């Protein structure tokens, strides 16, 4: 505290509160950013980081939240993102907002065209593009289409776009989430360079090592409140994690005594080629098994091929030229279509519930029964009452918080949506349940409830295969962990012998070999 009082403060957000129907997303949050500093905001998923940034940038306009935003010493009442951009507050969202089939130049000046009387001067635009590209360390032709650039370069284009708007305060929401190490480093370097030029940045990130590398101060959010702001000297992993989680890590996972039975599910020599580039092998011969009552995790970095593997097993929902065999209870089963996979007792709950999991415009009841409509019907005619009973039963079992089963799933929180997806698959009655990032974007409390559901299923003798990017989660709930890297399994270990370091080392060793 004592340091920043003397420093020149560019932004102060005071006592910000914001509610959504049924949820208080932000509760008296305070954030102060000094001029020319890199200020990191960390917190678990659902802690309110993105909401706070949407308040700041005017996505949620003045009046839709409580509290004050003071920028450059004046109170601001942004009505929209244009208002905040005019003052040099630029936000770069997690999902990139570039138009893939337009060129770099067209994207950079989209909405801010270099034009006179509505006529674009492409010469000026291209000249400025070159200057901006140079600033972010890119050497691309301005006419290159965005779709032809890698994700890392696209991220840089976003930053160049921010620069073109004369940015004073740059907000980056998980900028390195989909970048590899090299691109991440380049991006962090760039932030330091901006700092030298007097541009302030707010960096939202999950990756604590990155945060520690560049941040001057760190504000930790938890459950929509500010926990504390740490000065550079006080920053350490433990401090941050304790602040983020607010309690010991050990009780984040419900206890369970595994009752592991016979081999339930087995995949042999599974090979999958890329959906769009059929000559690229994505899954390079995978052999794995799950026993009854066992929770098995697949660890790996983004792009390791875990989702691709799961979806290809689940009715060939991903990929081409799929080969290999799948066994359930030692019997070879046909998983060539989703309905066959479901009939044979396999279910897959997607990592992207909004795109692949739910019909967001329909209510809970219809979503829960969708994968097993035969279970509530006679001769193709749905029995309303049977369906209602099923929906209510699963709503109670998975503790979906809603006024009733007629609530539209699009209006539910992430955790409740995930419970609807789980209910759908539980009602399908699978032997093996594949859960892809089952707790992504869900608050701590709902996570715990989802782990309890997973444990309950395992105790009933089902096999569970969990894909997760959160290693503590895998360590906390699994009995056994496979490590996947670039389409191969590069390690297997009992969870009792596993640790984050061991998993990371396995991945890194594999990278060295490949």
């Amino acid at each position, binding site marked *: 505290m004592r340091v920043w009082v003397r420093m020149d403060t560019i932004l102060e957000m005071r006592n910000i509160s914001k509610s959504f129907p049924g949820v208080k997303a932000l509760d008296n949050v305070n954030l102060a950013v000094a001029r020319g500093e890199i200020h990191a905001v960390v917190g678990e998923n659902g802690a309110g980081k993105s909401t706070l940034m949407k308040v700041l940038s005017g996505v949620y306009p003045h009046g839709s939240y409580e509290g004050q935003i003071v920028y450059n010493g004046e109170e601001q009442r942004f009505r929209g993102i244009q208002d905040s951009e005019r003052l040099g507050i630029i936000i770069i969202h997690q999902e990139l907002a570039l138009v893939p089939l337009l060129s770099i130049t067209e994207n950079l000046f989209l909405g801010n065209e270099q034009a006179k009387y509505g006529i674009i001067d492409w010469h000026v635009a291209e000249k400025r593009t070159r200057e901006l590209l140079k600033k972010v360390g890119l050497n691309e032709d301005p006419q290159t289409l965005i779709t032809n650039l890698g994700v890392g370069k696209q991220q840089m284009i976003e930053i160049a776009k921010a620069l073109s708007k004369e940015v004073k305060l740059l907000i980056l929401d998980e900028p390195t989430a989909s970048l590899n190490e090299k691109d991440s480093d380049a991006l962090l370097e760039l932030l330091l360079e901006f700092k030298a030029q007097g541009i302030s940045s707010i960096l939202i990130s999950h990756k604590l090592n990155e945060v520690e590398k560049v941040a001057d101060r760190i504000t930790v959010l938890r459950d929509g409140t500010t926990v504390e702001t740490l000065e550079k000297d006080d920053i350490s992993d433990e401090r941050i994690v304790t602040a983020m989680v607010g309690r010991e890590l050990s009780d984040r996972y419900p206890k369970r005594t595994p009752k592991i039975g016979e081999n339930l599910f087995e995949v042999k020599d599974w090979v999958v080629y890329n959906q769009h580039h059929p000559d690229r092998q994505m899954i390079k011969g995978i052999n794995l098994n799950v026993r009854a009552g066992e929770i098995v995790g697949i660890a790996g970095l983004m792009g390791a091929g875990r989702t691709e593997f799961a979806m290809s097993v689940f009715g060939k929902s991903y990929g081409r030229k799929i080969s290999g065999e799948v066994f359930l209870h030692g019997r070879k089963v046909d998983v060539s279509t989703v309905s066959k996979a479901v009939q044979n007792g396999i279910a897959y709950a997607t990592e992207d519930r909004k795109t692949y999991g739910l019909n967001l415009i329909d209510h809970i009841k219809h979503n829960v029964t969708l994968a097993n409509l035969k279970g509530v019907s006679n001769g193709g005619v749905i029995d309303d009452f049977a369906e209602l009973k099923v929906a209510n039963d699963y709503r109670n079992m998975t503790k979906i918080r809603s006024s009733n089963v007629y609530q539209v799933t699009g209006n539910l929180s992430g955790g409740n949506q995930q419970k609807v997806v789980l209910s*759908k698959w539980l009602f399908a009655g699978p032997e093996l349940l594949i859960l892809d990032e089952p707790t992504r974007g869900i608050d701590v409390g709902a996570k715990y409830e989802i782990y309890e559901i997973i444990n309950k299923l395992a105790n009933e003798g089902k096999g569970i295969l969990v894909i997760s990017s959160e290693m503590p989660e895998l360590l906390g709930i699994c009995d056994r962990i496979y490590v996947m890297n670039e389409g191969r399994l590069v390690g297997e270990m009992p969870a009792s012998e596993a640790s984050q370091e061991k998993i990371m080392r396995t991945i890194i060793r594999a990278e060295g070999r490949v």
Partner: protein
Amino acid sequence: MSDIASAETKPAQPKQSLSAYANFRDFGLVAALILIMLFFQYTTDGTLFRPLNLTNLVLQNSYIIIMALGMLLVIVAGHIDLSVGSVAGFIGALSAMMMVQWGVPVVPAIIVCLIMGGVIGAAQGYWVAYHKIPSFIVTLAGMLVFRGLMQALLGNRSIGPLPPQFQLLSNGFIPDFFPGYGIHMTTMLIGIALVGCVVWSSARNRIKREQNGYDSEPFALFAAKNIIMGGIALWLCYLLATYKGLPNVLIVMAVLIGLFAFVTKHTIIGRRIYAMGGNEKAAKLSGIRTDRLTFLTFVNMGVLAALAGLIIASRLTTATPKAGLGAELDVIAAVFVGGASAMGGVGQVLGAVIGAAIMGVMNNGMSIMGINVDWQQVIKGLVLLFAVVFDVYNKNK
């Protein structure tokens, strides 16, 4: 779901918070239809509800309603079919060629025509479903192709007259088995039986709900709804009975409306169409064969368009090159006025039927009033726009 639906065709689903809007919307739609009817009843000095005019209203609009049933499924599935007017015209021409020129008997001709409609729907659905060609483009092409084929087939002249037996489809009425009462007694009996069935089924459902411990609407509301809707139905029946009774085509239409209302609300295939329209990827990953389902909605649309084409030809007693021209727009408008979403996943059979009725009454009323056809178009266009604006506005609120 909808009050109207529950009153007319199906056991109601529980009335809880979600259905509040749907109820409000459906209620608004019925209220709009009643208001529009009263308005034209007044401005046409009572002509609108004269038995003769009411009968004409049914005969004029039945083919739109029948196609709206298929279009509803297509739109709920997230697609559109611009070709239905041309397909109906083509099938009408084909039927005339078969019956008049080639001497094919009526019933086989009808069967061949319906199959042909299914084949046309399949031909278009194939591209949409299995090759992911946008339905707008496929059916725009179909619209041109079948209009052209029809004109080629007819050689740009009218072919007729169609056999009297065939004309009965659109211009015939059900026989009266109990003559001598001064009104068409069979019509009244059918009307009473039908209303009785609907009231009985919604009462039974209400009881079942209560037995299962679910809330249902207050009894007064339930009773009022049944009495009002039943009363209106019986009154319309009475009006028809004082003329020639129930037109044959009304029977065909009523059976189809009942069938489609049932399929959309109570069957697996209906539910899957809604799920697919709401989120195709999620539906696919839930084990639904979305491509086959899309294909089938187009086949269904083709058969209904063919049926509509037969009805048009039968009503005009000849096949003319203009038959069905522009009908696709009336059909699509009816479905959207009836509350379907252009994004897919949302829409009700009864909404589409009422939407078609609103457009039909407006056509009829404005014609009786002597409003110029050009201005009729303007007014209908604005009604379509504001119905959808009203919808979107209410949803966002």
